[in-house]
């Protein structure tokens, strides 16, 4: 019988056979990379807002404290967003006719809130409490990065479960003194083991239950 296949068929057959295990491994690798990439976590993504509010200007240049607008951050789970009145305390005097601030003025007039776009979003089944972190030595820069450098708010951290767990397993290295909590320039983490132990004792943090599922999922 004459040859059925062209000599190239051998290499094609070998390629197909070899590709099966390769594809299986590839699936695992690509899946992980895709989920860890910024495409999924949204890390480093700027979010455009109805009013281009610049933290760089308000925090960096003017030196406003976080709690001025985000009042609930050390009291309740939700950090809180400034009501229109807080903006208008200054902007009723400054840049009163700037086109950029038209939505703020319109909101004040009509009583309809400004529809900001959320930058940091956690799934519904995750219960994150700002106040217990702020009151136990975790500063704003740990998760939000240096706000004084962000003209438009950017998502600085992946907020994946693995990322949160890394901190919950070694909380000490991410804790800082009370004074630095709201300081935008303090880098994180400090990686000083002695300070870590000191911080844990200072804030009386119970680490036994930090990786319990009931801490974040209810």
């Amino acid at each position, binding site marked *: *019988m004459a040859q059925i296949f062209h000599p190239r068929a051998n290499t094609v*057959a070998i390629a197909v056979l070899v590709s099966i295990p390769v594809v299986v491994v590839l699936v*695992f690798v690509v899946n*992980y990379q895709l989920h*860890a990439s910024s495409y999924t*976590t949204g890390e480093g993504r700027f979010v455009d807002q109805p009013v281009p509010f610049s933290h760089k200007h308000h925090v960096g240049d003017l030196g406003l404290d976080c709690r001025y607008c985000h009042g609930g951050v050390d009291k309740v789970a939700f950090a809180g967003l400034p009501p229109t009145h807080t903006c208008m305390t200054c902007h009723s005097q400054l840049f009163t006719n700037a086109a950029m601030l038209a939505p703020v003025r319109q909101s004040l007039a009509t009583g309809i809130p400004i529809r900001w776009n959320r930058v940091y979003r956690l799934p519904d089944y995750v219960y994150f409490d700002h106040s217990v972190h702020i009151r136990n030595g975790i500063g704003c820069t740990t998760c939000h990065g240096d706000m004084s450098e962000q003209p438009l708010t950017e998502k600085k951290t*992946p907020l*994946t*479960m693995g990322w949160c767990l890394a901190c919950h397993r070694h909380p000490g290295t991410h804790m800082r003194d009370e004074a630095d909590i709201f300081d935008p320039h303090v880098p994180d983490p400090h990686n000083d083991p002695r300070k870590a132990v000191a911080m844990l004792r200072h804030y009386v943090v119970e680490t036994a239950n930090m990786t319990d599922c009931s801490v974040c999922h209810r």
Partner: protein
Amino acid sequence: MTMAVGGAEIFPAGTARPGDDRRLTRVNTNEAVNVLVTGPLLDSERWRRWWIAFAVSAALTVIFFGSMIYLFVAGIGIFGNNSIVVWGYPIANYVWWIGIGNAGTLISSMLLLTHQRWRAAINRLAEAMTLMAVAIAGLMPIMHMGRPQYFYWLAPYPNTMGLWPQWRSALIWDFWAILSYLLFSIVFWYTGLIPDLATLRDRATTRAKRVVYGALALGWRNSARHWHIYQTYYRTMAALATPLVCSVHSIVGLDFAASLMPGWQETIFPPYFVVGAMYSGFGMVVVLCAAVRWGLRLEALITMRHFDIMAKVMLMAGTVMLISYATEWFSGWYSGRGVDRRFLGFEFAGTYSPLYWIMIFCNCIAVQAFWFRSVRRSLPAIILISVLINIGMWLERILIVWNTLSHHYVASMWRLFYPTLWDWLILFGSLGFFAFLYLLFVRFFPVVSMHEVRQLVREETAS
């Protein structure tokens, strides 16, 4: 139509030719084997019966997948499960199908290692059954889950959550038992098929068949060197298949035994499930052999002697099942625990007890008929008893689930299971889907392993 190649009359005197109404009594040449097995595959007009069966199975397959899609859209509430009897038909179907699957490997590996030459005619038939039964068995747990779209969480894949499977759960062992067993069976079945594909490649008449069979045969050229390496690999695989199949069905038994519920927490479950698997598997093999033998006229290859031996094996397995049940009853009574004794009472006299007695009849009593040679000689009797065995074994699996979940420790939560239409559709749909796959196999692949039968022919002609 007689096949004459190279002028030599391939059928010496005394042997009937295919298409001849007299059944072939003895096959004593290689060519006879080739003609019998590859004949139907290569000329495609004698398939009327096949098309009828294929149409019926295709309809059932549409029902099966239709029900599955509706299940995923509407949710598993469409089944008859409730919050107390949380498991139902899909779990029973899963155990039943993987039980049938296991018998295929038992035939092709255990009987190979014990030099049962007669298995050569039916081992590929059985391995194909394994493949398809385990594939369907693999679908069942996914259909039984509440959120099937996350079944991959049972695998240890690297993820951004830092979470891993929980290795103490019998369901994780199940995941790997099914996956390994399915892939192992595919490799084992394909390896056995390579030489026969080469034969088909060389006998193919149309270009398309030659290319397809040629590609699948990976260029096998029957070199003696290759045979030596091939047979070593094939026998080692058979040696590995036996412990694999025993462990797979022991793990399925551990699904129930690795719990603390009355009627499940018994040490006999793993071996008792393996024997149960072999038992219902042989039943299915008998049915398939009879069907394929009738469909493709392979009476010469799959002889009544095969059925006789298989009947004996089923007799042995049926008796072992009876012993297993007796052990269960005795250990339940002997434990002296109130809950176990109440459980036995519920099994024997409770709401499901009629089904229990039907199961005892099908599994243990009907098969005793095989003591008589006359019964073992009549094919219809064997087929009937095999079907009864499979019905009995399915009943056993569903009763294992129902009895324990309906009648357990806390009396206030005793509750019964009422099946719905969808339970039945998925069950019979899965039968249809199995038939659908099997008919495709019969249509495109050699049903009998020619190279092993040729060795059989050599032994008979040499002696």
